[in-house]
């Protein structure tokens, strides 16, 4: 008789989710779904509140990437009030954003994903985690813990709060950077860059070599990609134009303010997370595993696929090597991990670049704003993908409407395709046990939802 196998909760991811695998009478996978069911209601309860307070409220959407929501909101409220931040205001915001990317990537790669590869997907659940890594490789684990903490403490030292930040403000930034702060951050930034280079080398030896086999078992889906680039086609995280790439590698580019012309949202009854699809392709939306329509991916692999190059030398060299091996666009889901460590390298190099910009210690960090009616759309590339905040205000400068597209939302549809494919392949071959179910979760973990 038909039955449902549930993985509940999906673990070593940054939120709440479950997987339900539906089997038909003959025991074949008839469907598999990744479900996320939480009603946070941010789009509703920000209505009526003074817009300048919003960046301090919506950062609570995610405690891992609060800087991303904080800054996307700050940029959107700049737009509502029609205020242009000072150049230094932008530099300080970007510095905080790339620093926040660093802790996030170390967290995801080493704390959440690496145990599957370093300790093995068949190891016992009680050791297949960061605690197991601490026992297996104590020196590496201690360094990982310290480096992630360092990136967070750099944020706390300069910007007050690292988790649920407050220093990004409409019009710019709340405090300037002193020369002493700049020197201290640059020294720590160099330590992070050295670690990032080590991490990529380490992973090539200890982790990525195992990918070829795992990629084969988990399968590959073929989708489009979305990310952000500057006018020269370079990878950007803080600002730039959105580039939406088709499966064949062709693309369209547009400013985030026009997102509604290119992307559309879809509600499915079994998930509280809305799905986003590429409306501009005029093929509609379908999760049919044999012929998906409108599906594209975001996050690290997507960003590396859509950019022509990376403007910092070490990350560019790593990108060239990656492209040489996997082509463009690379489709393998586990390659998200590899792309994540290349972005870690970029984020560290970018920290040093920003700190070397002499404008960064300019005391003019904020342009005063006045409340007014308007609409603003702010976007950044969050670790989990393209993040869009869209607000409208009334003439008192209070919110009348909000629409938020968070990084993971774009990836809900492709994650469902990946889960279904992995479940079908694995269950076709083997008995259901903890290892097999963990391998299905690995298909989700790569996306870092």
């Amino acid at each position: 008789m038909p039955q449902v196998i549930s993985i509940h909760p999906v673990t070593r991811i940054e939120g709440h989710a479950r997987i339900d695998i539906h089997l038909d009478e003959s025991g074949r996978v008839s469907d598999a779904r990744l479900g996320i069911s939480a009603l946070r209601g941010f789009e509703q309860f920000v209505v009526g509140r003074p817009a300048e307070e919003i960046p301090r409220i919506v950062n609570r959407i995610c405690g891992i990437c609060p800087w991303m929501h904080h800054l996307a909101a700050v940029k959107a409220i700049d737009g509502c009030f029609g205020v242009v931040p000072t150049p230094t205001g932008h530099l300080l915001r970007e510095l905080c954003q790339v620093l926040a990317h660093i802790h996030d990537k170390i967290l995801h790669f080493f704390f959440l994903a690496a145990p599957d590869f370093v300790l093995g997907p068949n190891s016992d659940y009680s050791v297949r985690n960061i605690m197991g890594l601490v026992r297996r490789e104590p020196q590496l684990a201690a360094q990982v813990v310290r480096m992630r903490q360092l990136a967070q403490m750099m944020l706390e030292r300069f910007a007050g709060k690292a988790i649920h930040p407050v220093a990004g403000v409409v019009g710019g930034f709340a405090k300037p950077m002193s020369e002493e702060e700049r020197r201290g951050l640059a020294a720590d930034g160099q330590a992070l860059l050295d670690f990032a280079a080590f991490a990529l080398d380490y992973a090539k030896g200890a982790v990525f070599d195992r990918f070829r086999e795992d990629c084969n078992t988990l399968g590959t889906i073929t989708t489009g990609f979305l990310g952000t680039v500057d006018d020269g086609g370079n990878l950007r995280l803080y600002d730039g134009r959105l580039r939406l790439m088709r499966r064949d590698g062709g693309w369209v580019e547009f400013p985030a303010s026009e997102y509604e012309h290119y992307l559309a949202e879809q509600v499915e009854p079994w998930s509280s997370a809305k799905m986003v699809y590429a409306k501009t392709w005029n093929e509609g939306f379908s999760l049919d595993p044999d012929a998906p329509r409108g599906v594209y991916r975001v996050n690290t692999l997507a960003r590396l696929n859509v950019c022509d190059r990376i403007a910092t030398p070490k990350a560019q060299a790593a990108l060239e090597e990656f492209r040489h091996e996997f082509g463009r666009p690379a489709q393998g889901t586990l390659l998200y991990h590899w792309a994540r460590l290349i972005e870690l390298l970029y984020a560290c190099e970018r920290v040093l670049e920003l700190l070397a910009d002499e404008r960064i210690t300019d005391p003019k960090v904020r342009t005063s704003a006045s409340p007014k009616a308007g609409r603003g759309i702010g976007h950044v590339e969050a670790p989990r993908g393209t993040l869009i905040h869209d607000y409208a205000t009334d003439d008192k400068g209070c919110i009348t409407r909000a629409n938020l597209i968070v990084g993971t939302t774009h990836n809900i549809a492709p994650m469902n395709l990946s889960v279904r494919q992995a479940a079908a392949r694995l269950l076709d071959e083997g008995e259901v046990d903890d290892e097999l179910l963990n391998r299905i979760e690995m298909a989700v973990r790569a996306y870092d939802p």
Partner: protein
Amino acid sequence: MRPRLSFEWLHACSGCEISLLNSGEGLLGLLERVEIVHFPLLMDHKYRHRADGAGEIDLPEAEIGLVSGGVASEEHLAVLQAMRKSCTTLIGFGTCATHGGIPALRNQRPVADALQTVFAGADGQGAIPAAMAGQLDRVYSIDEQVKVDVSLPGCPPRPETIVEVIQALLDRDSLQPSEKSVCETCPTMRAGKGQATVRRFLANAEYDPGEPIDKMRCLLEQGLVCMGPVTAGGCGGKSAPLCIRARVPCRGCYGPVRPGGNQLLDMLNALASNGMHHRDLVDRPSLLRFSGAHGLLRPVRRRN
């Protein structure tokens, strides 16, 4: 046998868990003393449903349990009850667990309004997914639902404070809850009388960036609504409160100074006693933005 720790998150953002990881050496030291038996962010222990099929969740026994997030759905409630049952000492971990936190801002409206806004779409016709069944009528703090032994507020709680509280429980040391407010831990200069009117935070505070924080005038006296007087202190550890270090006013993320306090009423009193007019205050209910559980934020009855 090492003492066992169990972690769960409910209507939460994972910021509390990340704060624990930010303790660095503190975390490594803790891992040497304890065994973690359940922690969805970091390890693969799954829910096991009880053999009697009552739909209850069975979690491993632990000496100490930490629960972050408030309670917004029947599933949250089931997980919370399972944690209460399996843990000897239960800690409310972070302001959402102790006071509702930011997600409890939605208590100002009926839950149906949130569903409608999120799913209706531009045409107002969108269907609400079946997966959204099982929502409670509002967002609760965990002590409204089960007995809680220790409250550890903060959005998020300070990393070393989390480790200290766990260590103290392991060592059976008594916990001494601080009753200091943010103001009592803030080094800014107070002259006793400041601006009579409040202003929105649309331009930065006045201060000399070359000078340390103790040379900056109190932000409340500068006319900025700073909730330091009515908010539990501790966010900055031994130095200045974190938001003040960013030269930004406090918004109350540690909840009221004393359990059962009301940050809205207390703040209106604080403004009055500073000779400040609060008529111009925009969006008064958001003075409860971190402590809207316990029935403090609720839907306003609409006039017919």
